[in-house]
């Protein structure tokens, strides 16, 4: 890799913010603060309410961990049906156990009853507890008549984190509004206020991304893969037991879903299910659902499609159907989250400046952190390859069956290529994480032409891998012009003077340069279309590895501007 002076990467110049950008950074007034407080109080209030509700539920669920184990025998197990409209099915289990020589019978599977909207899920739960099975139950020592077969999993406790995030955001927002540093109050640390502003959207964006990505990765993509493979499941005769349009009412109005309970048998064993399609949520529009239901009156003989590896998994209609598009909603969530995160990361935060030290020097930090780059490309690669993998698995499946789908195979080639490119980019950024990190200090923090200035650097990490290390001060013109409907910015470097240029690891690790800018250089100048900007650039050449490449913006003042 060579020395790309001519194609030097040029980034944004956050430092200009504190020289010129004093309009957008005004601190909020008392009314503004009250407004912000009310907004975040909503977060805090909702967060606390749900923390209490979930906490209460968890304490109740986990109380069975205080109970004592005993041997239990399943007496009977079947799918029960309650009057609940949304989740009517549950596993109805009766078991016998002995406690201090006394025999007891319980019908409590767990402390909080798990109900299901789909029959086959309840059926799977029942299938795992056949009559005669001996297993451990947990007895309440204070009331031996009370015992459960299942205790809540510990990971359920993680649910408490969801409302806690709202509590943290709410409390942090209120704290930031009243005690956070204002941009106007610090002479050279505008980043404090900026960070507080940029932090909250980033956290919200991250929550959106994680929730959307989680639903996408753990529900949407597996379900999409299963619904595509359901087209190859075994066609099996079935009989409709009951059919209806189920309505779901809430504050947003009423939605409808198809609810057809049918019976089928596999290897002589009877099963029931009410699953119409794998993607079948509820939505508005009664007529389309009524039309489907009318095709399956009770007693009607039809066919269903049974998963050959799991006879409880069955659908009346194979394939994803159009309703799978509703599953793309988490995709929109994730996209919105990523965009918010990118925007808040792009926003000129502390970026190039950190606080003043006691001796009056200023530590500069690069705008984009290497970890952010890795995280950003990781999310994009995960999202892209997650979707592509569903179709690739179909292609692979076709080849393994000896019936390759050549059209799909060719169609997927460019998508797979982009996916591989993203993986390569991710690996590149990961490798760059092992690059040495450079810290630059300048004193005084704002350069004045003709006045002495001290620039010192510290390089941390695997410095020995650098073959050449160069730090230089750059001044450049930036002219923006409109071409048609787009804006273009041309850049022209007029000043490029090295501060350090060495191949010795010892000199790379730490050093300083003293000097003065020529008296007749043009100071930093920012107008709408025309700018003169200054930066300290760091380049480190590493063989067969991503180069070290950083830029730190600085301000050159005209004296009394």
């Amino acid at each position: 890799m060579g020395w790309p002076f001519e194609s030097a990467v040029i980034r944004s110049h956050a430092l200009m913010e504190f020289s010129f950008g004093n309009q957008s950074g005004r601190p909020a007034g008392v009314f503004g603060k009250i407004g912000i407080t009310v907004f975040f109080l909503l977060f805090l209030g909702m967060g606390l309410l749900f923390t209490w509700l979930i906490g209460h539920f968890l304490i109740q669920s986990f109380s069975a961990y205080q109970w004592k184990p005993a041997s239990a025998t399943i007496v009977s197990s079947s799918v029960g049906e309650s009057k609940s409209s949304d989740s009517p099915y549950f596993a109805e289990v009766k078991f016998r156990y002995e406690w201090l020589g006394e025999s007891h019978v319980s019908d409590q599977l767990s402390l909080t009853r798990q109900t299901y909207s789909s029959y086959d899920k309840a059926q799977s739960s029942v299938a795992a507890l056949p009559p005669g099975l001996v297993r451990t139950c947990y007895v309440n020592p204070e009331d031996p008549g009370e015992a459960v077969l299942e205790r809540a999993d510990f990971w359920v406790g993680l649910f408490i984190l969801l409302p806690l995030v709202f509590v943290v955001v709410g409390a942090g927002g209120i704290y930031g509004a009243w005690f956070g540093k204002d941009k106007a109050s610090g002479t050279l640390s505008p980043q404090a206020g900026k960070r507080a502003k940029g932090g909250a959207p980033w956290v919200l964006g991250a929550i959106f991304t994680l929730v959307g990505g989680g639903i996408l990765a753990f529900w949407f993509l597996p379900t999409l893969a299963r619904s595509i493979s359901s087209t190859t499941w075994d066609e099996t005769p079935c009989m409709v037991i009951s059919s209806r349009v189920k309505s779901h009412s809430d504050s947003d109005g009423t939605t409808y879903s198809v609810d057809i309970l049918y019976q089928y048998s596999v290897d002589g064993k009877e099963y029931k299910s009410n699953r119409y399609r794998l993607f079948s949520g509820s939505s508005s529009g009664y007529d389309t659902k009524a039309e489907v239901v009318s095709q399956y009156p009770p007693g009607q003989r039809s066919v269903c499609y049974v998963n050959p590896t799991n006879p409880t998994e069955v659908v009346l209609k194979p394939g994803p159907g159009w309703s799978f598009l509703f599953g793309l909603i988490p995709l929109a969530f994730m996209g919105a989250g990523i965009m918010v995160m990118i925007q808040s990361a792009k926003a000129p935060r502390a970026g190039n400046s950190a606080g003043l030290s006691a001796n009056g020097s200023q530590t500069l930090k690069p705008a984009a952190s290497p970890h952010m780059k890795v995280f950003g490309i990781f999310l994009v690669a995960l999202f892209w390859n997650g979707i592509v993998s569903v179709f690739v698995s179909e292609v692979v499946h076709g080849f393994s069956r000896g019936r390759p789908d050549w059209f799909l195979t060719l169609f997927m080639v460019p998508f797979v290529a982009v996916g591989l490119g993203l993986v390569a980019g991710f690996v590149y950024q990961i490798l760059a994480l092992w690059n040495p990190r450079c810290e630059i200090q300048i004193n005084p923090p704002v350069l004045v032409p003709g006045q002495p200035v001290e620039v010192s650097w510290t390089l941390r990490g695997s410095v020995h891998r650098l073959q050449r290390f160069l730090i230089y001060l750059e001044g450049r013109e930036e002219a923006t012009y409109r071409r048609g409907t787009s804006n273009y910015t041309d850049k022209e470097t007029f000043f490029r003077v090295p501060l350090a240029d060495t191949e010795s690891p010892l000199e790379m690790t730490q050093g300083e340069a003293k000097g003065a800018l020529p008296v007749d250089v043009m100071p930093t100048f920012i107008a709408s279309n025309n700018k003169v900007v200054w930066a300290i650039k760091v380049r480190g050449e590493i063989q067969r590895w991503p180069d070290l490449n950083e830029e730190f913006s600085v301000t050159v003042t005209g004296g009394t501007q």
Partner: protein
Amino acid sequence: MAPDCRHGEEENVLEKMKARNNPFRSECVDALPYRAEGFSWDILTTRLQAHQGRGAIIGPEGHGKTTLLLEWKQRFQSNAPSTCFVKLEDRQHRLTSDQRKMISGSQHIFLDSAEQLGWWGWQEALKLTIHAKTLIITTHRPGRLPTLMECRSSPQLLAGLIAELTSHPFDAEALWVRHRGNIRLALRSLYDHCASS
């Protein structure tokens, strides 16, 4: 005040070209009047009247649509004060609230880059201008309003414009071919040529 674009050329004969003396600086390029073979304001005005004050100037990027529209607006402004010029940004599918206000309060509307508006945006623009006396747009393709004129460029046109800015001979034909007839792009590239010569 028209910029003196030839001034300063000589100053740079023996030294580097300064931005303020570059004959292709933005103020000079922007000040070039619209020209085309057989172009006449009378014909254009007659066509506009024939289409009840509504029409489109069409043509590819960098072929003078905006220049012509701005000049037309200047001509209108001297007689009819209730005139507005709205320029749409890249991928701007809807009008902004300020642009809507400007359009609603004007009788003669000049809408630049109307192809950026999506279907909804265009319907909204039509609704806002329903009572306007004049609506002239620029767009890349015909269709939205009756075509009043199609802007074209030629190597001769480019040569004429260059000659207006500098006495230095440039191969206008080669430039025109390289930039596929985009005059604006060709003149921008001459800025760089002069700056680095």
